[in-house]
Each structure stands twice: as C-alpha cells, then as structure tokens.
C-alpha cells in the first residue's frame, strides 16, 4: 500500500476513538495525522490546509458529533470545489448504518462500522487508495 507521506485528518468528539483510528493508520505507516474534535474544527483545519504544502489527502470522520456532524462536514467538503476531491471516510455505529445512503448520495468514499478490526480497516483503506489512483 502506498501513500506513506499522506496527511490525514481524523475527526471524532471522543479522543479514545481518534486514538483508535490513529493507531490503525500508524500500522499502515501513515503518521502525518491531524485531529479535530468536531466538524467545525475540522472544517477550519481543512480550510487552513488548502494551498499549504501539505493539504489533507484523506478525511476520516465520525458521524455523530456535536456542533457540525460528520454528515454535515461531508456535505461541506463535497460542495466546495477546493475540497470536493478529498477522499472522505465516515465512521458509523451499527445503528446508523441505515443512514449510509444519505452519505452515499453526498459522495462519501466509503464507510467503516464500529467496532472494526485492523483487517477491516486495511480493506477500507485499500478501497480508498484504489479510488485515489483512479482519480
């Protein structure tokens, strides 16, 4: 798997889950990771990164968050021409799976259902990397 130098944004209001996602990214040698604890903070970080030498190459966001949720962040990212190409992975609870169609319509790259193993995480990342190569 490529993309060792990619910069990734991990968004979750729970630090424990941000750490859990970071742990799994590090297994894939992805270490340039920025954290945000809600969609609003994430959007500020995304805007700041636009035009920088290292913009975000992927966003992994929880669905349920205070202020701006993951789905609202996805909508914002997809509606802005500067960010609409960034691969976006939504992390959902099993009970939110029914809502995934909404995310698909908005252009989510893929989604991860909690709890997830390293193997499942790797498979999802593989999907993202393949799409990145095609794009």
């Amino acid at each position: 798997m490529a993309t060792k130098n990619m910069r990734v944004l991990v968004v979750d209001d729970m630090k424990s889950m941000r750490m859990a996602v970071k742990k799994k990214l590090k297994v894939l040698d992805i270490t340039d990771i920025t954290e945000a604890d809600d969609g609003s903070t994430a959007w500020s970080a995304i805007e700041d990164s636009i035009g920088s030498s290292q913009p975000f190459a992927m966003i992994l966001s929880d669905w349920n968050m205070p202020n701006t949720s993951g789905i609202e962040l996805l909508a914002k990212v997809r509606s802005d021409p500067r960010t609409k190409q960034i691969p976006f992975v939504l992390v959902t609870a099993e009970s939110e799976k029914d809502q995934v169609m909404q995310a698909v319509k908005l252009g989510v790259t893929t989604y991860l259902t909690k709890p997830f193993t390293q193997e499942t995480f790797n498979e999802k990342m593989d999907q993202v990397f393949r799409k990145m190569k095609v794009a």
Partner: protein
Amino acid sequence: MSEASVTFIKNIISAIIETIEIQCERKYTAAKAIKEEEFKKKDYCVSGVIGVTSEFFTGSVALVFTSDSFLDIMSGMMGEEYESIDDDLVDGCAELLNIAYGTVKKKLNEHGYKISMAIPSVVYGDKLKIKDIGNDPSVKIPFCSGDHIFLVSINFENSHK
C-alpha cells in the same frame, strides 16, 4: 424477567465482549467461578451506564471497571500504554457502551423490539462500590483476563411482561 429482557441481556453481553475484543484487541471471558460477594469487594474506579427503554423492557446496563482492567482495555483500544486514568481516557468507556448498545439496538429493532436511542454517562473516582436499589431483577457478570476484572451489571424493572 421477560423473554424480551433475557434476549436483550444475552445480546448486550455478547456485544460488549465482541466490542472489547475487536476494538480493544483484548479477550475477556466470563469468570463464573467468582462469587458475587468476592467481586463486590473489589475497588472499581470507572463506570459507564446507559439507560434502556423499549416497549418491552426498561432498565440499565453498566460497565464497571477496576483501574487495571480499564487501563488494559483502553491501552488496547488506543495503541499506547496508559498508567493513569484521565478525562480523555474515561470517554472511552462511554464509547465502548455506545458501540455495543448501537449494535444490539440495530439487531433487535429489526425484530420489533423498538429500543430507543440512549446516551451513556460515565462516573469515575476511587473505590466505587456497587449497590442494587429495590427488588427489581439484576444480573452481574464478572469478566476476566488474567488478573484484570470488570463487571457487566444489568438491571431491569419488573413491571414489563
């Protein structure tokens, strides 16, 4: 205890153990040999509680951790070794409950259980003790991995059939 309550209990217990195994990479098994008076004596320090409401039952599910079991499980979840418990670490308890509850809610609601959304809360501090209030049925199951122990404590109101 109603049949619906028993189904919920079985499912929530297996979802908790599965969540810990998958997300935290820690395998805990039911310690049936430990008597209630023994595990009640332990010093617990973190507890996550979620209220459960459905047309068929009302109750609560609590995860109750000793400090060593909580540090072990959170270290597994986050990929770093932790030696003390802080606010950030404690939110992991709520997250585990959320994941397990969400899994069970989805699964059972497909069979008409109508379980409502719920938000867990977490309490932590030294020497938390477990006490049942009233005469409603309760289930307490200790889970162990080596010397580490945590409890799943489930209470249900008697009023539902």
